[in-house]
């Protein structure tokens, strides 16, 4: 230190002693101790769930637009019953109610609703919600511990237990091209059926996949039998969602917008839907080409049934899908293969739910092997450090 600075320092000491500067010092009696890191990303579980709900909105609006007030009722029932089921479980099990506030029950209810026909009665929503929240999630220990997608567990349980209600499809309001009567049709008897809890009767229709299944059974494999359901005009209707089916699964357009939102929010691994859809496309295209008449073309398969909903929203559920990118690819391909096998050769016209549940069961296995190479290891010698 130079002479000048030294003199300066010396000059400062007495000055400080005489007039202490008005400095407010921390008392340090309210300090919090915690582990590093001391800052945190803004994202938390409720915000993730909120973003998922945002991404689901296009499909929700499409469902209401296509199936009328009945769809709105089913959605409301499912959400209310799911939250009620969660609340009741937490109360009974003496758990903190934080899991109610994290919106996960709302997401489950919404996904369940999207997987139901618009004409189901209220009590079916109630049963579904309790199966989803209690059997699908809470018995395993709650959010994060469930091996299977809760909404799919409920859907499959209902499908097997109550097929009569689960396969009574309400026709979309635009289906007959009668846009003029749309306003009148918005409130259809289906809506009141739902309130009364009566089974849907009168106006039902078949899904394209159902039609294909029956056609193949009745006529046997022959080239050209699918011309009626698999043509460019029909594809456009499928893309927009103007067909019969579950209230959230028909509109591929709305689901793709939602999927885009999910990818933008970085909530899903894009590999799952891409490889799922890709596998279905390749698989059905090959079968369609090699064995004409066995199954409709690939585009038909991509646009119909619950594939879009399943691939974009159900298979990508964080809790029940693999955590790594290679795992996501394996998972997507597996879902695609199982879906195609069920659709083409299975007893059910639709196989998406079963396929995803089946692959859910394999996730722990996939996660165990599809891991990244830890930093500083040779690719073929990952556990060296642990042995040493």
């Amino acid at each position, binding site marked *: 230190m130079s002479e000048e600075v030294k003199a300066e320092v010396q000059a400062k000491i007495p000055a400080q002693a005489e007039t202490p500067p008005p400095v407010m010092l921390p008392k340090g009696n*309210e*300090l*919090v*101790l*915690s*582990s590093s890191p001391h800052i945190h990303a803004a994202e938390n579980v409720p915000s993730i769930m909120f973003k998922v709900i945002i991404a689901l909105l296009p499909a929700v609006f499409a469902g209401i637009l296509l199936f009328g007030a009945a769809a709105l009722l089913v959605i409301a029932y499912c959400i209310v019953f799911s939250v009620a089921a969660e609340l009741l479980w937490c109360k009974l099990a003496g758990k903190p109610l934080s899991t109610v506030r994290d919106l996960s029950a709302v997401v489950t209810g919404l996904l369940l609703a999207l997987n139901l026909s618009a004409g189901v009665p209220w009590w079916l929503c109630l049963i579904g919600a309790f199966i989803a929240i209690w059997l699908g999630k809470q018995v395993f220990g709650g959010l994060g511990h469930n091996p299977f997608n809760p909404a799919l567990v409920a859907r499959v349980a209902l499908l097997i237990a109550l097929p009569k209600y689960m396969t009574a499809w309400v026709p979309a309001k635009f289906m007959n091209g009668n846009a003029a009567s749309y306003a009148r049709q918005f409130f259809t008897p289906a809506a009141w059926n739902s309130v009364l809890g009566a089974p849907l009767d009168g106006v039902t229709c078949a899904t394209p996949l159902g039609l294909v299944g029956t056609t193949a059974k009745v006529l046997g494999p022959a080239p050209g039998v699918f011309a009626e359901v698999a043509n460019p005009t029909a594809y456009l209707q499928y893309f927009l969602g103007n067909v019969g089916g579950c209230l959230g699964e028909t509109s591929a357009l709305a689901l793709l917008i939602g999927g885009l939102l999910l990818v933008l929010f970085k909530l899903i691994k894009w590999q799952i839907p891409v490889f799922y859809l890709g596998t279905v496309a390749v698989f059905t295209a090959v079968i369609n080409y090699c064995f004409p008449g066995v199954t409709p073309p690939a585009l038909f398969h991509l646009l119909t049934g619950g594939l879009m909903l399943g691939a974009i929203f159900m298979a990508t559920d964080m809790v029940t899908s693999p955590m790594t990118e290679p795992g996501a690819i394996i998972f997507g391909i597996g879902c695609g293969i199982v879906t195609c096998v069920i659709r083409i050769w299975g007893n059910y016209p639709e196989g998406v739910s079963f396929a995803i549940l089946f692959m859910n069961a394999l996730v722990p296995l996939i996660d165990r092997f599809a891991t990244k190479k830890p930093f500083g290891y040779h690719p073929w010698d990952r556990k060296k450090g642990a042995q040493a």
Partner: protein
Amino acid sequence: MEIFIAAVIAMAVIGLVLGGVIGITARLFRVEVDPRIELVAELLPGANCGGCGKAGCADFAKSVVTGENPPGKCPVASREQVAAIAQALGIEAGATVKKVAVVLCGGDRNQEKVQTLYNGVSDCVSASLIAGGPKGCAYGCLGMGSCARACPFNAIEVVNGLAVVHPRLCVGCGACVETCPRHLIKLVPRAAKVHIYCSSPEKGAAKMKVCSVPCIACRKCVKAGEEEQFVIDGFKVSVNYDAASLVGTDILGRAKCPTGCLLSETGHLKIEAAQTGEVA
């Protein structure tokens, strides 16, 4: 009918073949087991606490039969059980000094003067890694119950932020001793009923800043008792557990410990005098 007969025959053949295979392998790969090991294992309490230093009761039974350990080394077994084992094997029972764990800290929430807010895993080892944990005293019990979780006999309870041992439940296996990041838990002879509940080597004034019940090494207890009954180590006095005559509860009245760190077991547990008979 034929199908039944075929099935029965098939099952019988499969059964015979597999049974034969099992029989042969059992002969080929037979392991000689000393029957006495099983006998001893049966006589042991079967707590698998590891207090003897072995991996479990079966392992300990083996070491008893081989003569590596005397049966008395099992901290859980009662004197009768030990005698039964010794008799069965025809050996000496070995000296049994019954031990009990004691948490040498008396600073619960009411006694400690400085407590920082802590936001993290409720585990003593984890907490001690963050600036030494929330407790003002760097040598005191963190009260997050790592020892209580480690105890196979549920003998440790965290009361008001301080771990206390219930001597009636403690068998002295020592499973808790290793878990304490502050090394506050000691295995002491069961006969010792009075302890100095402080482990801080700091100066008295420094201790008084953070706690109202530290040992300030005033030596009043040493003067009241006999010299060799206590160990003076820097700014801290502790009970000499190796002494020929352990210090008794009568010292409490005579020593008049000014801070109150010299306590009986029951005093540490904060049990009313009426209940002491039940515990002791």
